[in-house]
């Protein structure tokens, strides 16, 4: 019996090691968690894509370089998570003093349904949430490959569901001024999201102030 216990112990230890290594030390139980971990460790690289906003203006995404970005990925005909996520984004937007942080922070809702979400549709959608088109912009990416590029860069998974719907990640993506993914925030926790964003923006500001002095 003693020998049996030892063997069982050895199997348990080996099994524990197997589980330990396959979950990166019990930190990533889903592949998604692992991808986010890998993503944060990546060197900064700014997405080089052309976008069109809800005012019909076209520009390169590097327009936003140097600012923190709070991004969500949506499609306007979505009836489930997106409206909830966007209205929560509005709460966060209202909680943050944009007069104060407007230069260092921008809210972006990026549509991945390029076919249906035209500039007009996006502008109407922006109207629902009082997005002003400046400090909060709704974006579309005309080029499919470029859209794919930014989705894969921030590891946003979009799977078509049925004829007209998509299943997709619903999170607030806080992007660092250098294009790196900062945080992936739960869109239901608006207080926490607002705090995290202000903290991130202020930490950069204080560094700049020190540098200026």
């Amino acid at each position: 019996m003693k020998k049996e216990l030892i063997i069982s112990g050895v199997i348990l230890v080996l099994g524990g090691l197997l589980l330990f290594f396959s979950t990166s030390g019990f930190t990533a139980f889903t592949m998604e968690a692992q991808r986010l971990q890998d993503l944060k460790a990546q060197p900064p690289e700014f997405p080089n894509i052309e976008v069109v906003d809800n005012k019909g203006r076209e520009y390169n995404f590097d327009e936003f370089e140097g600012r923190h970005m709070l991004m969500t990925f949506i499609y306007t005909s979505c009836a489930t998570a997106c409206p909830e996520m966007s209205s929560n984004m509005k709460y966060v937007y209202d909680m943050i003093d944009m007069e104060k942080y407007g230069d260092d922070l921008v809210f972006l809702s990026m549509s991945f349904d390029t076919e249906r979400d035209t500039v007009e549709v996006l502008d109407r959608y922006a109207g629902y949430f009082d997005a002003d088109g400046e400090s909060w912009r709704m974006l579309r990416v005309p080029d499919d490959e470029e859209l794919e590029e930014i989705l894969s860069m921030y590891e946003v998974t979009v799977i078509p569901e049925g004829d007209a719907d998509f299943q997709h990640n619903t999170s607030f993506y806080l992007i660092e001024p250098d294009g790196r993914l900062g945080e992936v925030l739960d869109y239901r926790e608006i207080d926490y999201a607002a705090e995290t964003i202000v903290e991130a923006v202020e930490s950069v500001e204080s560094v700049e102030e020190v540098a200026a002095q």
Partner: protein
Amino acid sequence: MKQFWYGLALLLFLALPPVRDLLESVMAFHMHMQMLLLFVSGLLMEPFFQKHFGGVFDKYNKTGLPGVVLFLVILLYWMLPRTMDEALEIWFVELWKFVSLPFLAGVPLRDSWKKMSQTFEIVVFMILMVIFSVMTYLYIFSESTLCNNYLMIDQQTVGWGFAFFVLCIVMYILLVLFTDQSQYFGDDSEA
């Protein structure tokens, strides 16, 4: 020995590319059919290993405890949402699935089962019940997709599959506890 050939045939059948594609296209098929059948193929193949490597089992698995522990470790590993995703995306994890479930879960469990007391059997069923209950809760009530390759609705289906397993185990335990099994399996039975 006939069982061994059935088991091997089942394993090879499951490994056929079209069969694999089909069973992995739906999450509930993947977890509740493919993985379960791989495990079953191991159960069927056990007599072969017993016959040719019986010494190893007698030496290291006398009471059945190590076999059960090994089975539970492998089971737990494949319960992780991550491993299922990886099986789809990384070839050696897929291979590991086809090796570990039959040979490291099915074979040792059948060897252990013969040696275990009824109390021990009930304990194993209880452990399974707890694991599957947790899985039921996790997959039905999780608000985010746990597997990148499958839809939310697939995930909930898998959760209900686990709920069904739990129900079966509960019914079995009640049956064993409240009926006199010896009336059904007398001395003349093969056991």
